[in-house]
């Protein structure tokens, strides 16, 4: 299955792109997608997640426009976004 991944703010600069499609096996969870992203974009490993990332890293993840947890299962066509803590207002 394919999911669309979007990157915002500093994460867009780390990824070098604002958007890409990533192939994943059926039944993958968000944490599997994150592993894939760390492979594709080593800067995320180095600068964001560290070697043994945990859910408390300063990373927000949304799935189809809602905040999502690492354990959520993905579906084909999902839009997942990765972004740093917000600073609106």
């Amino acid at each position, binding site marked *: 299955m394919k999911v669309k991944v979007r990157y915002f703010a500093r994460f867009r600069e780390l990824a070098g792109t604002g958007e890409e499609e990533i192939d994943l096996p059926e039944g993958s969870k968000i944490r599997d997608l994150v592993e894939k992203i760390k492979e594709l974009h080593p800067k995320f490993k180095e600068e964001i997640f560290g070697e043994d990332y945990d859910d408390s890293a300063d990373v927000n993840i949304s799935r189809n426009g809602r905040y999502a947890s690492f354990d959520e299962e993905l579906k084909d066509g999902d839009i997942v976004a990765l972004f740093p803590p917000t600073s*609106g207002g």
Partner: protein
Amino acid sequence: MKIRLFKKPEDFDIAEAVGLVSSPKSGGIAIFLGKVRNESHGRRVKKLIYEAYEEMAIEEMKRIREGALKKFPILDMVIWHRYGELEVGENTILIVAAGKHRKEAFEACIWAVDEVKKRVPIWKKEVTDEGVFWIEGEKAIPDKKVH
């Protein structure tokens, strides 16, 4: 529209926002208007560059408005946010809460500003005399990209 993103040069019309929440029942209207100020943690700010994940920001602002209407006995609420390159003195956010009485209007307005800052996917980059910083929550992270 009670929930809206404004891309500069679009700007807020506060009277319009007040009109959107007013009814014969409203006795107290609390408003918060955020602006770009010239200083941030000792750094002299030249401008702020706001970026939004637009579709999600709108949804999250809607959820905050609905949350406020449940949590406080208010009558209505407007949440507006701007993005783009905003100079010192320019408007950034506008929240208007209408209540029968001022107490709940103030409480809901204060709560909603905090929630927007915490949850709505909008980020700012500070352009200062010490360089350019991504602002992430309470952190300021130097921007590596050349401007």
